[in-house]
């Protein structure tokens, strides 16, 4: 979480002399070349004109941005926000109790529990996505299980068709991003002073009240970081949506990929990228601002 690390002034800090700047130089050069320059090029490209596949005309135009405001692409952005938002909410609801449980576990057990959460994510997320095929397939394990439990002709009239539907996409997205929610919340929970909760209880607050009035505000910085770390990558994801939906559901990431690959309209793709970047900065600003406000309030 980028905003988390504060620069602590040590005793021997000083202004860099020419030698100090010399040491800074490689790092600054790296940033200029591989962070600032590419973003600048993306911005410049977004004002060019796409001329057929892969060809770029360097005439200045605002047409690409005008095109983004067509209903087709507004829809696309909206759909991406909905999917990423739903993923974030589900991850928070599923992950919060887990983070709480691990954070409140005896200190000796926390590391092990955390490791247990992390291990599955050491394998490629793509291979894990494909692993869901085995389960959700029409002739997969889920339907096999339901059939052998005699639930299929009774409760469900026919085998469940989950693969290649929005449900499958949601399962895969939540699965991919869950640990990104659990970890930051855990760090907040771990720091929580248990006497505060006790105090709330002593003052007669019920569990619900003490959760919403005491616990949630105190762990909000972690939750905000988690929201950022799930929402941002989820909104720009490609591949998972395509694989799990059988090519049905396209989000903004898929469209950008398409423009940079198949559609070949690089300037329009760049404009979509810039729009996504702005969306990202707004999300970042909101969630970072929120967590700071909560911190100040306590």
């Amino acid at each position, binding site marked *: 979480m*980028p905003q988390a*690390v*504060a*620069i602590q002034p*040590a*005793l*021997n*800090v*000083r*202004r*860099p002399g020419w030698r*100090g700047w010399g*040491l800074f130089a*490689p*790092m600054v050069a790296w940033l200029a*070349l*591989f*962070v*600032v*320059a*590419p*973003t600048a090029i*993306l911005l410049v*490209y977004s004002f060019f004109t796409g001329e057929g596949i892969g060809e770029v005309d360097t005439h200045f135009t605002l047409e690409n941005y005008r095109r983004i405001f067509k209903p087709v692409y507004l829809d696309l952005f909206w759909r991406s926000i909905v999917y990423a938002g739903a993923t974030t909410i589900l991850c928070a609801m599923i*992950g919060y*109790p*887990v983070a709480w*449980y691990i954070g409140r576990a005896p200190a000796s057990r926390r590391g092990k529990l955390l490791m247990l*959460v992390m*291990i*599955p*994510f050491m*394998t*490629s997320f*793509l*291979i894990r996505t*494909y692993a*869901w095929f*085995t389960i959700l397939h029409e*002739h*997969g394990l889920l339907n096999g299980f339901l059939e052998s439990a005699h639930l299929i002709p009774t409760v469900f009239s026919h085998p469940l068709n989950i693969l290649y539907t929005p449900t499958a996409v949601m399962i895969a997205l939540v*699965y991919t991003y*869950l640990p990104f929610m659990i970890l930051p919340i855990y760090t907040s929970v771990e720091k929580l002073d248990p006497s505060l909760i*006790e105090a*709330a209880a002593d003052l007669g607050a019920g*569990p619900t009240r003490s959760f919403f009035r005491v616990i949630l505000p105190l762990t909000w910085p972690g939750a905000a970081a988690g929201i950022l*770390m799930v929402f*941002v*990558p989820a909104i*720009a994801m490609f*591949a998972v949506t395509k694989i799990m939906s059988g090519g049905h559901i396209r989000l903004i*990431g898929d469209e*950008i*990929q398409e423009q940079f690959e198949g559609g070949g309209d690089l300037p329009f*793709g*760049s404009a979509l*990228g810039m729009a*996504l*970047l702005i969306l*990202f900065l707004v999300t970042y600003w909101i969630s970072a601002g929120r967590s700071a406000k909560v911190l100040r309030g306590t």
Partner: protein
Amino acid sequence: MAHPLPSGNSLARLFLPAWTIAVLVFLYLPIILLVVYSFNNVPNNMDLSAHWHGFTLRWYRAMWADRLLMQSVRNTLIIASAVTVVSIVLGTGAAWLMHRFVFPAAGGLQTLILLPMIIPEIIMGVSLMLLFRAIGLNRGYLTVIIAHVTFCFPFVMAAVQARLAGIDPSLEEAALDLGATPIRAFFSVIVPYLMPAIVAGGLLTFTLSIDEFMVTYFTYDARSMTLPILIYSEARTGLKLTLNAVSTLFIAGTVILVLAMELLRSRR
């Protein structure tokens, strides 16, 4: 020592572990299936159904024989190693310099460094692709490594900064007083102190690089193809249980590494 939960929470006491176990099942089920099916003797690679056709090791044998697959595994390890080394140097250096010096733009620089950690990967991917295209750098190992380092070294920096925040300033002063040059003081006193953070950052970098897909997608070429890219293009064309076999080995490697670290820690 367990902290007592708020009173009247016997429900929570049952609910929380049960919920955690359920979530762990959710997290592990696909992984376990992945491992189990790497031993499945499926006769036809068009068969996507979950039938069990008997135990076999042939996917592991086929895996060794698959030149493309082995090349991508080697690429993945080479790239991740190079990225880790460069990121450690850049990240540790950056953290130390930011700690050591104050200057007006420090905050801005800090944000700029950390931005690639959270910026949507696809934006990094396409913008780097445009950059490489503009400066005429052909796709290959170098472009992939550059792209990975750009979003990995901030992780090392953040880890090292967290440790630097707790450093005792007299540590370096003591080293300097003993007559060491600042550079020697840095390597003989500061680096050992920072080592746990450097290792943590390095390991994180390594795992991030191994699993990176989206940025790599826009910067690789045929020779520098990594495992995630191969998985993406191969798994779309039917069942490839050799991919399960490779992944199983990766999981086993991770588990062994984790256990080894745990063992190392408990010994100390």
